[in-house]
């Protein structure tokens, strides 16, 4: 039943966004998040949101999927907008009831922040939607290489991430088996109050832990058998090379940054 989960919500494809080097994507997403925060008025925000939408269209990820991703943070968006509407008292007064005031400033701030959050979500989810977990960890490992100088091993971190990703489906399958096995022995997992149900989880967690330790032991043995000895002297099959698409993406983002700065200077800031 839970076997068919997709990890990291990756949607395979061959769009220019998919083809970007994962390192470029990580760097550019980080840069874009900063650019989004740099916007100070509606004109620069409009430019940035148009760009975000352009990226989504370019990636050929259905807009529906992107909007679904927003579902989880609808509450955050609503809360921040409501707070803005009620606590921002700039501009013309539109409506008043006792001490509660709604002003044009409040409404425009609410819209501004909502659009900004949506842009942030779109850009950051594009990263996981268009990059496979393997490429992503690989990219992170290579990007963090300079950390080696301060004795943090990016290879170890990446290896842990890979193993975690690799074993999530295996462990889910195992939980399925354990639940069936315990049910067959008469375990009652579905009735009772919260505490009772939490207690019912113990006979599932203990076998899972015991088995995980055995798996870890086996895996370590298998890795040693295959001559694993950490990141030193290790090569990689995949060669990462920046292509024309990457350079183009860097140029476009630089232009976007320039555009945002110019619009910020020429128009009055609202935030």
């Amino acid at each position, binding site marked *: 039943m839970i076997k068919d989960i997709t990890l990291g919500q990756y949607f395979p494809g061959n769009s220019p966004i998919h083809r970007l080097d994962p390192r470029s994507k990580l760097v550019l997403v980080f840069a874009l998040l900063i650019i989004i925060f740099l916007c100070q008025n509606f004109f620069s925000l409009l430019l940035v949101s148009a760009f975000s939408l352009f990226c989504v269209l370019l990636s050929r990820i259905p807009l529906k999927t992107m909007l679904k991703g927003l579902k989880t943070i609808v509450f955050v968006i609503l809360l921040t907008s409501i707070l803005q509407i009620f606590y921002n008292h700039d501009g013309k007064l539109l409506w008043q009831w006792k001490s509660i005031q709604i002003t044009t400033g409040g409404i425009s701030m609410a819209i501004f922040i909502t659009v900004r959050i949506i842009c942030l979500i779109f850009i950051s989810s594009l990263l996981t939607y268009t990059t496979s977990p393997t490429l992503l960890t690989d990219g992170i490992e290579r990007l963090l290489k300079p950390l080696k100088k301060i004795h943090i091993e990016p290879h170890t971190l990446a290896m842990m991430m*890979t193993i975690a990703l690799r074993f999530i489906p295996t462990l889910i399958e195992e939980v399925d088996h354990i639940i069936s096995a315990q049910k067959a022995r008469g375990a009652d997992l579905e009735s009772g109050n919260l505490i009772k149900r939490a207690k019912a989880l113990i006979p599932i967690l203990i076998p899972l832990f015991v088995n995980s330790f055995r798996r870890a032991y086996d*895996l370590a043995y*298998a890795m040693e*058998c295959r*001559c694993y*000895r950490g990141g030193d002297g290790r*090569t*990689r*099959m995949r060669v990462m090379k920046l292509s024309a698409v990457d350079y183009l993406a860097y140029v476009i983002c630089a232009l976007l940054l320039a555009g945002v700065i110019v619009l910020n200077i020429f128009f009055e800031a609202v935030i």
Partner: protein
Amino acid sequence: MNNEIMIQIQNASYAYDGDDEGVKSEPVLRNLSLDIYRGEFLAILGHNGSGKSTLTRLCNAMAQPDSGKVFVDGMDTANEALEYAIREKVGVVMQNPDNQIVATIVEEDVAFGPENLGVEPSEIRRRVDDALRRVGMYEYRGHEPHKLSGGQKQRVAIAGILAMQTECIILDEPTAMLDPQGRQEVLKTIHELNRDMGITVVLITHFMDEAVQADRVAVMDEGKILLLGTPREVFAHREVLFDSGLDIPQSAKLADRLAQFGICLPGSILTPEDFLASFCAYREGKK
């Protein structure tokens, strides 16, 4: 098969650390000697706890014998400097396919070994493609391991060893957790590797029918080699096999049962083919 020795085990004894500090538990290997020849297909039979898996650990320098010596292609496993050179020669495939696949994509996992050895990227690519074709998993190179069947996972694990270009593969009950079809796939693959690439194969198993197809069979019990020889020689010692909790191949069993009913088939019978030939000969004789 030639007479060049790939792995030489000389009077090896081994005991795991006991529960109390400094105290060893009951030895698992007792004064065991065994020569494994280059290019041969050796099956090792033995019930659980007979020391089969420990033998594997001695052969790829994961453990050193308490007494005695183990040489892999002339290299002493006690020499720590040679540890990785030895593991480059002797690959191990374990029982549970899930616990030996490291990466999230099939081809990445096959590349894991050569990557550890520091092989050039283009050469890794070539080895990975080659290894996946050898085990018939090339079409699955982009798949996620958890979506494969047990037999397919085990073949990926074998490809992972092949890509390291080892000269010897030890398979520790590789089919124990597989369904009959998966078993067939894996057995076919390892026989092909042995025949076509000349790779030395050591198959640890408790399926008699798998052992029958080997060049030589070694029977282990209580840390010692009980019997060693061609399948026909070994399976002729029925009492010894039964005493150590083992069995004889199904076809041989069937012939035995027939003999109890007075139908004595001629010749020694190990495989279904033997049985068929013998049975036909018997029928001819009756006419």
